[in-house]
């Protein structure tokens, strides 16, 4: 892949993304939703199990906004026929996918970083005895949460290219994220519960937020994020394959 | 209730753009009214206001004497073609018309009838998303014909059609008008309406520039214009200019002369010893007449600018 071409494609994608209707509102929404839900969780929490995890619980809601951002950047192009223009300007499909992925990752990393730092700061203020901002496990939780948001965004990007329709793509990604924890909640069998928590993109990925009781987790923090990365990789491969095989 | 559309003083502003600026005209039954103007002159907006899709800031539009949104079975009063892309790609052509028919309580047989009328009977059960531009155009016209309405309103129906398709639409429009229907057809290319339109409404910048019969327009523009072929154009031009004629070169050895009659030209040239090969009355095309008209409109606009936006 030619780096000059990729660089230009990235610039083009960035211009498209930032001029997308509601782009700014989505970024504001990501930060606001994440911080608000985190603050609500911390406020009035009596028993603090894992302070970092509690403060960062807003990520579960904020990721939905990241999903919309990624899906719209694809479905908007297919809906309007803009994709034909995009592909005539950058005929290498992989370059288009890579450029979109890079631009979305950077955007969500920065925005998600603001959201995660804000959540931790509020948690620090609201929670008695939690979370220390500088120790290693808190840093891992913070960095991991940002990476989690980026991986979820890329997952949505892959699914977006695979199904092209915005509604179906969002529905698929959100179902994939939220159904595993819902199932974990109703399943009574402990073995199955543990397995669901290990393979589900959201429960496994969010294991990276854990700062206490690591030995009792169904899956280790970085391993969990790795599971999410596998999901994301699979979605991007699928999306890329569809993009290459099918006409625009 | 008869056909026809009345448009009275429509004004509509989109942000900084005054899209309609006092648009008024009438579409009468039994003839094809051409609705002409450059892109952005307000043709589509006018049509959207007629259909009640856009609300005007001022003025009103009546279909057969009633506002469109008050009609109980609107497709039986006015058939329209606005946007040929307005269809769900995965639906078949027949199903696309079927749901439209259901809104008006029309039977399925009517759907099959109009599909035959526009020549889509064989493609009726194919996904409309796979249609060519010409087929979509035909499907859109089928939708307009569905309610057998006394009035039709078609926005740029010639767009993207091959010559055969253009010929087909022209014949269709003429026959619809001959049946006594009022037909409004917009176009940004005057040449497309040549031989079709009986009446012209020319618009520019959101208002009517000319509202005239095609015959009178052509006659008015053509009056007194004579083509002169001569081997000595310079001499001829001097002689004629001296007599008060306006002379413009229109070829290597041809001149367009206005302001003096053909007989006067002959006697002037003969009297001054200028030889000429041919003298003929000029046949103007609709396109030329239109350019003439819009040139005047631009001048009119420039001179009346202080009053614009009144």
């Amino acid at each position, binding site marked *: 892949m030619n780096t000059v071409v990729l660089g230009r494609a990235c610039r083009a994608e960035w211009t498209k993304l930032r001029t997308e209707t509601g782009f700014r509102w989505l970024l504001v929404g990501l930060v606001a939703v994440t911080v608000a839900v985190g603050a609500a*969780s911390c406020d009035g929490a009596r028993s603090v199990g894992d302070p970092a995890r509690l403060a960062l619980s807003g990520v579960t809601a904020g990721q939905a906004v990241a999903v919309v951002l990624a899906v719209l950047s694809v479905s908007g192009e297919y809906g309007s026929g803009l994709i034909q223009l995009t592909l005539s300007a950058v005929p290498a499909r992989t370059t288009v996918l890579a450029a979109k992925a890079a631009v979305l990752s950077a955007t969500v990393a920065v925005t998600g970083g603001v959201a995660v730092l804000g959540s931790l700061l509020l948690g620090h203020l609201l929670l008695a005895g939690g979370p220390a901002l500088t120790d290693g496990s808190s840093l891992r939780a913070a960095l991991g949460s940002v990476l989690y948001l980026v991986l979820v965004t890329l997952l949505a990007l892959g699914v977006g290219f695979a199904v092209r329709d915005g509604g*179906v793509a969002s529905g698929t990604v959100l179902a994939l994220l939220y159904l595993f*924890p819902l199932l974990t909640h109703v399943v009574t069998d402990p073995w199955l519960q543990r397995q669901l928590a290990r393979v589900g993109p959201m429960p496994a990925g969010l294991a990276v937020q854990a700062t206490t009781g690591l030995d009792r987790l169904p899956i280790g923090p970085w391993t969990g994020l790795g599971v999410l990365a596998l999901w994301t990789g699979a979605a991007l491969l699928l999306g890329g394959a569809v993009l290459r095989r099918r006409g625009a | 209730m008869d056909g026809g559309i009345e448009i009275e003083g429509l004004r509509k502003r989109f942000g900084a753009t005054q899209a309609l600026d006092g648009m008024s005209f009438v579409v009468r039954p039994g003839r094809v009214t051409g609705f002409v103007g450059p892109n952005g002159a307000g043709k589509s907006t006018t049509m959207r206001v007629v259909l009640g899709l856009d609300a005007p800031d001022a003025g009103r539009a009546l279909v057969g004497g009633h506002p469109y949104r008050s009609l109980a079975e609107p497709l039986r009063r006015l058939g329209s073609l606005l946007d040929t892309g307005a269809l769900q790609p995965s639906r078949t052509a027949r199903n696309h018309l079927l749901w439209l028919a259901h809104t008006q309580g029309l039977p399925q047989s009517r759907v099959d009838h109009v599909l035959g009328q526009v020549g889509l009977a064989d493609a009726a059960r194919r996904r409309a998303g796979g249609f060519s531009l010409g087929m979509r155009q035909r499907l859109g016209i089928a939708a307009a014909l569905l309610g057998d309405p006394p009035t039709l309103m078609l926005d740029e129906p010639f767009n993207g059609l091959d010559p055969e398709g253009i010929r087909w639409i022209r014949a269709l429009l003429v026959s619809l008008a001959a049946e006594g229907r009022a037909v409004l057809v917009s176009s940004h290319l005057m040449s497309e309406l040549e031989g079709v339109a009986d009446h012209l409404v020319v618009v520019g910048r959101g208002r009517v520039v000319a509202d005239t019969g095609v015959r009178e327009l052509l006659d008015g523009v053509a009056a007194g214009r004579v083509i002169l072929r001569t081997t000595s154009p310079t001499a001829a031009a001097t002689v004629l200019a001296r007599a008060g004629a306006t002379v413009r070169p229109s070829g290597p050895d041809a001149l367009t002369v206005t302001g003096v009659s053909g007989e006067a030209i002959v006697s002037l040239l003969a009297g001054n010893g200028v030889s000429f090969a041919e003298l003929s009355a000029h046949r103007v095309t609709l396109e030329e007449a239109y350019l003439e008209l819009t040139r005047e409109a631009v001048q009119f606009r420039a001179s009346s600018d202080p009053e614009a936006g009144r």
Partner: protein
Amino acid sequence: MRTTREVRKMRPTGSMRTLHAEWTKFRTVRGWVLGCVGAALATVLFVLIGTVSSNQHPGGAAALPVGPGGEAVDDSYSFVHRTLTGDGSLTVQVTALTGVLSDPNGGPGRTSPGVTPWAKAGIIVTPSLTPGSSYVAVTATGAHGVRMQDDYVHDRAADLTGVPSPATPQWLRLVRAGRNVTGYDSTDGTHWTEIGTASVPGGAVQAGLFVTSPAAVQTDGGGGSSPATATGTFGRPALTGAWQGGWAYAQVGQDAGASGSYVPGTTGGYRANGDGAGVGFSITGAGDIAPVVGGPAGGPAFTVETFLVGTFVGLIVLGVLAAQFAAAEYRRGLLGLTLAATPKRGRVLGAKAVLVAAVAFVVGAGAAAVTLPLGEARAHAVHFAVLTVPAAEQLRAVLGTGLLLAAAAVLALSLGVLLRRSATAITALVAVTVLPYLLALGGMLPTGPAQWLLRLTPAAGFAVQQALPRYEQVLSVYTPANGYFPLPPWGGFAVLAGWALAALAAAAFVLRRRDA
């Protein structure tokens, strides 16, 4: 001729025509029809995942007893009983209710004296010793005074409060006359106060003294439970009427049941206390005579909600369909054609709303009607307890699931009109329904915010699926995390319906005001 018939057939009013047209629009897009089928299938299939079990109950701890009202019950107690063949009365003095509690933090074997609030020592009349039988009882309790209870779900407070002791004994009496049994209490055995009347089936019944005790429940913090055993001391029972045979002892329900357990080192049993006045009894027991509830008092079991977990898949799929049904009009300018055919914009929106609501209701109620019996069959196959609920409650859960999806579909449709993009609309729908549910029930949020989420957001509507009622006479942790919604089933649904209607009104307003 065909034409005239069809014209007559389609004579109905404009609204019906619009509805007919929207239905044609809906059914002629294959993806939407397949989506509906997929939503129903996914809802049903999810119950198979939800009920997977690695067979942790071989041989079958099996089904919980079912009470006369059809609900799952606990019916485990220590019982000293005789047969009463006709009318008669039983009077006894309770002189003590004491007990032993496991210390939840003290490790195995550490116990402390004490009774749980709903530990019971009293008298009971029941036609059979089979768990789940009808009964009427008057009983002293650990912390709720004298109560008269019958058929598990009914509970009445008497005027006597406090715990019986030798200094302040509590006198209890049950009088059977025909089908009616009337309960009384007294402080001195002379002056009696009537508490109430309930009925038991005619014929021979077992009547006598019983003791039982539910496990101790930690209502704050994690909400666990720990074993508790109670002992009641009774004076000599005074009998009148048609009694047969002698006193016999039974541990009804074999064990302490789902909501109780014996403190290690204790067992159920009785002792006859001889004294000058005759024979009294000391009875030791654990368990409960009460409906099963969710949370720590319920123990592990499948509930109706477990079987309906697929509703979430159905909601997302139908939400996508409804949002697209609106957003597809905005893509490609189809809305212009729709409104040219039906200029009354409110009517178009109304027809769309009726249509998606009807489709979603059919899919939801149909899937739920298949899911519940399927889930129960699966649970029995893996020998897992099921908290049975009465048929009326099951019907409510089935119809409620349909209505829940119908309201969610209307909400999605309205969001589609307001936001004009199906991707944004479906995300908004999930964010206001599934996400609050997950945050509240997943135990991520503390109880306070969780309850507010389930009161205010459209997620409140999931309450309509809640099949387990809360009972004052059963101590548990009635929080969202244990499946208890802060609002009653129809109240919660009303919140969701309110949101859906408000969104629909906003969509209608915007549709009328906005240029199409």
